[in-house]
């Protein structure tokens, strides 16, 4: 995930540190659970399309029938096959959107905290203006204007929604670190400002930022699924966990599995990633 590098000068020295950090994390039960869950869902999304009994857009029977494990959906496609095909896009889009949003947000927040004074004021007030937009509204406005949005547009829109929120958190965390003596010491040595941020400030922010990343990933999946639900997916006919909820909601009473199956996978994935982020955050805290 978005674990910043320690910016260490020699490769030989860095080799031991991340490994021991990972090992410390493995001693956290919640991390192990989270990691297992995340890996399982990701593996499922990657491997499942090759094993599915029916094709992605193949009709398997009458609509809302009980055929197969989870029955069929509103136009008679096999729900299990749709779930197996529908994961990749959602996962890739939400993970990328989270990463982009985190990186941009952390940059804004840390630079604001480190620069201080007027820069801080200007950056954060502009940030507040962005915060005033409801996250999904921004996406909807742009997506409505575009005729054929590609996946990248969705990724950038979701990331743009995250960035100002991440920036707030990152600035708060960084404020407590930039005033510490080791940052002043680096400045007195004349380190470049960029290096002070990357090597001195960022490594000390991993804990809270990892927790934030877990939260943001959950939101990403929610927003991507919601966009699919509202009909703004790149390919309207393709299987997509979010879109499946939208397509099948009218038959919720006759064929609940068509909605429940994608909801369950999303739930497992978000819980697992949050557990993992929590575990990582705790492990990194114990290093202090």
């Amino acid at each position, binding site marked *: 995930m978005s674990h910043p590098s320690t910016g260490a000068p020699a490769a030989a020295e860095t080799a031991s540190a991340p490994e021991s950090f990972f090992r410390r994390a493995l001693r956290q039960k919640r991390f192990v659970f989270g990691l297992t869950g995340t890996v399982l869902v990701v593996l499922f999304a990657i491997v499942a399309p090759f094993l599915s009994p029916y094709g992605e857009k193949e009709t398997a029977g009458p609509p809302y029938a009980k055929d197969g494990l989870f029955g069929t959906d509103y136009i008679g496609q096999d729900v299990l096959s749709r779930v197996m095909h529908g994961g990749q896009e959602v996962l890739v889009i939400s993970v990328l959107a989270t990463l982009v949003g985190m990186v941009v947000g952390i940059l804004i927040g840390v630079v604001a905290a480190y620069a201080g004074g007027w820069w801080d004021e200007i950056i954060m007030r502009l940030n507040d203006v962005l915060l005033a937009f409801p996250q999904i509204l921004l996406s909807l406005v742009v997506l409505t204007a575009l005729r054929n949005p590609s996946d990248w547009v969705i990724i950038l829109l979701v990331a743009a929604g995250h960035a100002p929120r991440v920036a707030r958190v990152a600035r708060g965390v960084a404020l407590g670190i930039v005033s*510490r003596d080791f940052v002043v010491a680096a400045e007195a040595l004349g380190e470049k400002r960029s290096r002070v941020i990357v090597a001195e400030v960022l490594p000390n922010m991993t804990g809270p930022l990892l927790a934030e990343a877990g939260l943001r990933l959950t939101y990403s999946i929610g927003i991507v699924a919601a966009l699919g639900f509202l009909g703004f997916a790149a390919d309207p006919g393709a299987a997509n966990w979010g879109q499946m909820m939208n397509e099948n909601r009218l038959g919720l009473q006759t064929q609940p599995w068509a909605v429940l199956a994608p909801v369950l996978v999303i739930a497992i994935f978000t819980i697992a990633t949050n557990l993992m982020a929590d575990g990582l955050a705790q492990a990194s805290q114990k290093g202090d």
Partner: protein
Amino acid sequence: MTTTTSGTGHEVRKTGGLVIEDLGVSLTGTGVDVVDDIDLVLRPGEVVGLVGESGSGKTTVGTSLLNYSRAGAHISSGKVLLEDRDVLELPWKEVRKLRGEEIAYVPQDPASALNPSIRIGKQLVELHQLRGIGTAQSRMQAARDGLAEVGLPTDDEFLGRYAHQLSGGQVQRVALAMAFLPKPKVLVLDEPTTGLDVTTQKMVLDTMAELCRAHGVSALYVTHDLAVVANIADRVAVMYAGQIAELGPRDAIFANPSHPYTRALLDSIPHLSQARALKGIPGRTPSPGRRPEGCRFNDRCAFAVDRCREEVPALRTIAPEHEVRCHRAGEIGTWDINIGTVPDADPDRPRDVILSVEGLDVFYGRKHVVHDVSFDLAKGEVVALVGESGSGKTTISRSIGGLHKDWTGTLTFEGRQLATSARKRSAEDRRRMQYIFQNPYLSLNPRLTIAQIIRRPMELFGLAKGKDANDRVVDLMGQVALGPQMLHYQASRLSGGERQRVAIARALAAEPDVMICDEITSALDVSVQGSIVELLEGLRIERGISMLFVTHNLALVRSIAARVQILQAGRVVEAGSVVTVMDTPQEDYTRKLLGNSPRID
């Protein structure tokens, strides 16, 4: 039993004191002893000093008297007898009542002991209110009396203040007043003057000692500083690695210290009246579970023989009331305070000025904090900046180091004028002047390894890289007495003294000509301070490094510096060579500082 007699002006009580028998505290789970075999008597009206380095278990003993142990440890054996009642056996409800009422505790950090959102007056009144003592008026009167006893104002304005509106010394005296208000029989003080400057420390100590004697309160004063104990304690117990190493009347401990550890502690303390070559104690206090066989001090002891490694020594009585836990007590000769004395730095030595400050004025926003300060620093010389907190000594050093840029005046380094902020100076100037911070817990990045921290200045200034840099790191670590096994430790795993050594090594890595040391020993144990000063003195002689040494400890100045600037409220009040200023002070302020500093003579 308590009998109360009417004395002159205040109550004088006769209490039975407190008896500690065979006290032991172990870690829950492993059962490893944190402290064991503690026997100690606190007589009424007596102050007993409990002295030891960090990790010796002194705070553990202190809190055990209140039947409290920190999480992860429990009191595993022994008795704490208060008037024939065993505090450790009392039911929980009675222990709660006993705490504060009969045995009071004054914590190390006064600021965290007071509730920041309750006014001082209300906190004092609450003590009686919670116990249902007296009426509203009598409680208020008691609160005022309590404040008067510790020398604080008693008017409504003061009672209405919050803790953050008081100075550090005032907060500590309020904490003392709170401890004395319920008229306890025993008082446990856990380093209550750490972080206070000498004047406030003296005031707090005097107040405490006077109250204890007047009210017949027995006090246990926990500290790492023997110099403080020399001024207030009747008896002294020296602790090492969870046991009492030496116990005796104050005068016996200071005139005839018989345990090698007590001697080593005394060797690390600077004196006001003479310059001493300070010595640290090699190694570090072993943690519970890692204590050596036989005598626990054997691995750091200069007198250790085979018997010390095999046989556990018992506390032996060598003189009336004077007990020592050492096989060789009596064999190792006598200790003389004058052994470590060295001549004062020669005031008439020719000086080759490397750094000079002229007409320095420093501002924080609109506030003018330092006024027209001028002094200079010669090659291979140590100049001390001394003053109480708020005198501007750190502000001056930060301005010279380029960490604070809001100043005017002339700063000349080898004839060249330096810019206000470090960033505006040339890389060469930055390299040649290094700054060492007060708190080693804040000045090292906890996420980097020791090797990364020390080699960074070499890479930054292009002094060495690759394998060459690695060799130099190992070399530097040797110079500051750190083993190469620590190379890949993260800074967070080191003790305070070790961290400060890393900070010094980082400064040395830049091969500086001037080092600015900002109170670099004030966060450390006295024994560690001794070894850091020893290290700096060696560096000064070997490498000819000049140092600007900021401190509030005048005794330390005598041991390390050649010249001194006494600061008060941002102005230099007296300056000159250390010998002249300290032996024949001209200003009242200097005399006051000297008078308030704890001394061992």
